[in-house]
């Protein structure tokens, strides 16, 4: 038994570490080298990204998932992994085999009125109450969707109904899908290589005919007309294609990427088709004809061609592809959850089965450290990909808050080896990464920063400080709610946790008192960071538009956190609150922080309301209500608290600090 307790922590650590290593190892490519294709770089939304990111973010916008399941398995059959089209595999179909892509269920509609309005009740596939439709199923009602979408678009943002928002989202998804279809070759093209060869061959004759016509000579109208028809197709592509896939003609001109259509038109004067277009044409033909060897050779050829002048860009594509595949944050989420459960087990069995408790506590702590390492790896990888400090948008703030909270939790665990710090770290890591996961469903999370935000200095100072302030306020609040739950429902708070030797100063230290010390320390920390962060924000505002403070909602949110932390400290110093009061105040800090983090963004609800934010608003309300309930629980008279029932009131101390001076 004793050995088992010793082995358990290492067992957990090795188990999860092995899983992580397995995830990080490179994977073999398929028969078609789809992964190699997925790594190829393109320019979209102002940044270099691999085809895989284009595919993934497009799918997220259409279907709110990163890949396409080929069969629907009920959620409760979690052991049954459905066959899937991975994001890049799906994109290849869209590019080069659109007739098959048109049958894939990729358009999510979840508004019942919209479904019945479009008479789609009996079509599509259903999973967990969500319905997915293929392009072919929607094709008959395309005009109606476009019309409704246009109407919704004309409505003022604030007045749009959920129905209208759904219509707009669907209409946008359809446009995006059609743009993707004409990103590499004109829609409906067969054997793009021959088309391009033919085009290039006819170019001199067409140019000669054109010149002759300009000079007033008589020319064969059909030659010109045929050429004009082909050119028209490329012109449509130039206007409509989604990612810019052709690298700049002059490698030094980094931003001059083009789409295939524009590149082909630009090559008319000197009749030189860009090599990239040639490679893409070969890929298109080979994929269409299921010629695996030719496809792989075209991809490899393009990759080699890129290596001479576009090595950095290609490396960026590969790195981001790798990052997309390993899904580090997902794995960290799972480890955090397991660590949290183990830490809870350790806390609850503490006193009942001390050895088991210690073994679980240790396991939990090891896992927290592992999860933290994985989390840090992801965070740093993202920073390197973006070339930015950690927090640039709401998504990355969630990841960073979890990371900061995890550090604080680990620090607490090092000081008080109770499992409490690990529990906090595990819970914070799990919840924040879950929030981040949901925020990522909106699409690209590495979008470029608007002009005023384009400053690494202020992002690294102000934003980081404020976010650490959020994280620490949440940690204090989490400890507060742990205190209330443990106090009301278990006798644990009155357990002695200090050194029990008779001379020790911590002889009388109970879990409750220890937690009060933790909360106090964390609130101090939170005050420091939220104050400095808020003032730095004001200074940034002074630097960028000459106003230190403008009472803008986001500024006010930050100010509220500062005020609340300062209030807690003064209430504690004045002896206005003791242990339980401190905890209740700390829990209320969760509400204040959640308002600053998410709530103020929703005030604009009138202004920028998207489907997700509506859902997020409900979650925020639910969260705040739960915190209010916990505070109500915390206000119960002490005799109803299981922890204090037998030992009598223990929070007579500390005495007010300032009162002693009078």
């Amino acid at each position, binding site marked *: 038994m004793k050995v088992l307790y010793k082995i358990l922590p290492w067992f957990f650590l090795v188990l999860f570490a092995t899983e992580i290593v397995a995830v990080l190892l490179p994977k073999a490519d398929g028969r078609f080298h789809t992964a190699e294709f997925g790594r190829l770089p393109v320019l979209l939304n102002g940044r270099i990204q691999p085809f895989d990111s284009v595919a993934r973010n497009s799918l997220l916008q259409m279907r709110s998932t990163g890949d396409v399941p080929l069969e629907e398995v009920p959620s409760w059959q979690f052991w049954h992994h459905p066959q899937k089209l991975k994001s890049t595999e799906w994109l290849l179909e869209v590019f080069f085999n659109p007739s098959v892509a048109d049958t894939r269920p990729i358009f999510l509609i979840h508004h019942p009125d919209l479904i019945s309005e479009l008479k789609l009740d009996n079509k599509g596939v259903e999973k967990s109450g969500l319905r997915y439709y293929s392009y072919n199923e929607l094709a008959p009602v395309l005009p109606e969707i476009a019309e409704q979408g246009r109407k919704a678009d004309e409505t003022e943002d604030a007045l749009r109904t959920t129905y209208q928002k759904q219509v707009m989202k669907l209409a946008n998804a359809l446009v995006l899908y059609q743009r993707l279809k004409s990103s590499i070759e004109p829609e409906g093209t067969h054997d793009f290589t021959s088309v391009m060869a033919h085009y290039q061959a006819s170019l001199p004759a067409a140019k000669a005919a054109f010149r002759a016509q300009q000079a007033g000579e008589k020319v064969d109208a059909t030659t010109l007309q045929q050429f004009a028809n082909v050119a028209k197709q490329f012109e449509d592509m130039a206007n409509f294609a989604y990612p810019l896939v052709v690298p700049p003609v002059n490698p030094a001109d980094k931003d001059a990427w083009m789409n295939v259509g524009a590149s082909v038109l630009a090559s008319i004067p000197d009749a030189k088709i860009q090599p990239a277009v040639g490679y893409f044409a070969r890929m298109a033909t080979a994929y269409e004809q299921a010629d695996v060897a030719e496809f792989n050779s075209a991809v490899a050829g393009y990759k080699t061609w890129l290596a001479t002048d576009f090595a950095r860009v290609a490396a960026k594509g590969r790195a981001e592809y790798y990052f997309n595949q390993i899904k580090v944050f997902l794995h960290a989420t799972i480890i955090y959850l397991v660590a949290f459960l183990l830490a809870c087990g350790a806390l609850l069995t503490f006193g009942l089965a001390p050895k088991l408790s210690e073994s679980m506590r240790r396991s939990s702590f090891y896992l927290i450290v592992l999860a933290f390492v994985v989390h840090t790896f992801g965070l740093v990888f993202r920073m390197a990909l973006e070339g930015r400090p950690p927090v640039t948008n709401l998504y990355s703030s969630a990841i960073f808050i979890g990371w900061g909270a995890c550090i604080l939790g680990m620090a607490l665990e090092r000081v008080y080896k109770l499992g409490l710090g690990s529990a906090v770290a595990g819970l914070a890591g799990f919840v924040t990464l879950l929030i981040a996961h949901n925020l990522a469903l909106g699409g690209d999370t590495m979008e470029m920063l*608007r002009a005023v935000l384009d400053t690494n200095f202020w992002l690294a100072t102000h934003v980081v400080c404020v976010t650490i302030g959020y994280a620490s306020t949440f940690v204090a609040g989490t400890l507060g709610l742990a205190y209330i739950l443990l106090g009301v429902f278990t006798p644990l708070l009155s357990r002695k946790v200090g050194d029990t030797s008779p001379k020790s*100063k*911590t002889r009388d230290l109970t879990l409750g008192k220890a937690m009060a010390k933790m909360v106090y320390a964390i609130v101090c920390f939170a005050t420091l960071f939220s*104050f*400095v962060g808020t003032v730095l924000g004001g200074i940034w505002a002074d630097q960028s538009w000459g106003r230190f403070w403008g009472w803008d909602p986001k500024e006010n949110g930050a100010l509220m956190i500062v005020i609340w932390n300062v209030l807690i400290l003064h209430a504690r110093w004045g002896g206005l609150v003791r242990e339980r009061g401190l905890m209740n105040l700390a829990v209320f800090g969760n509400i204040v922080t959640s308002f600053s983090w998410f709530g103020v963004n929703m005030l604009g609800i009138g202004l920028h309301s998207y489907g997700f934010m509506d859902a997020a608003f409900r979650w925020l309300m639910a969260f705040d209500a739960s915190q209010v309930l916990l505070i109500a629980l915390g206000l119960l008279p002490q005799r109803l608290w299981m922890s204090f029932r037998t030992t009598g009131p223990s929070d007579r101390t500390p005495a007010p600090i300032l009162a002693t001076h009078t």
Partner: protein
Amino acid sequence: MGDRLYRVFTSLRLTVTLLALGLILVFWGTLAQVQLGLYKAQNDFFRSFFIYWSPGQSSLRIPIFPGGYLIGWLLLINLFSAHFRYYQPGRKKYGIIMIHLGVVLLLFGQLLTDVLSTESVMHLRNGEMKNYSEVSRRYELAVVDTTDPQVDKVVAIPESRLLRAGDISHAGMPFTIRVAAFYSNSSLTETAATDHVQVQTTAGTGSGIWWRSLPRETDMDKRDMPSGIVELITPQGSLGTYLVSAYLTQPQNLTYNNRTYELRLRLERLYKPFTVHLLEFKHDKYPGTDIPKNFSSRVRLQRPDTGEDREVLIYMNNPLRYAGETYYQASFDPDDQGTVLQVVHNPSWLTPYFSCVLVGVGLMTQFSSHLFNFAAKRKAT
């Protein structure tokens, strides 16, 4: 009684109460912005002593909640008196004193900013040169002596003076201006319209125009358009009555004693001893998108009295600080051919920087002393 009051004002109970009220105020004021807009909510909630409530349509204003100024002042009084009451010399208190000093500095700095700072705007088209900025909400009646083609002599009469009516004279003007009527916000039409009356003037552009006064604008996005009728009186008699209005963009010319003058009601100008010349405005976007990457104005700064002449690049997060003023890239023309620079004169702009350092260092000393004590205690056990 005095003793009790002293106890109340020095108590931490008051601090906590005020902080709680402050939290509610900030929260309420933030929510109110959705309805009232930023500007009005700011004035009603934060730059006021009380928040008022008017039941129904009545003109009654019942104070229902302390406003930002009241809470701020009470906190300051509380802070000073508490420090006075509890002050004890000793190294332990340095942190606390620094923190509170920093906070006081921050609050006073903001108060000074409210009182002392002026904001104006310099709008430049590509290639244009200016030696003044304009205050976007204040007007002035400019009488410009344009006789000398090299130098204009300007006498500017602020709107507040015009509103007081009566006669206005100035050494730089050979005539007296008598204000016959002045509306701080008005409507002008070229045809008879409801509530408008015909403008009665004897000179200038006034004939064939109808006007009426309007209530002042409260909307952040709109500005007042004042108009008035003035008479120019010389020792030899009247030169006639003129309509002056923010709607009239062209100056009205007149001659007197062989000198030519221009008369114009315009945005109040703040003249500088230097000129700013816009060489090029740039609006960069990320490739393949409409997402703005940067806005920048390359300007040439020339100051005749010092011979200074240099090029400066003003862009986002990088303003030009010069001669006690700061020039920020604020906006631009829709055709990308012109820039709008926000010009802020704020003598107390540095206070937040000092305050941030004071409070930051103070908090760190205070908390780290707690932490060291704690660590020492744990080690001792």
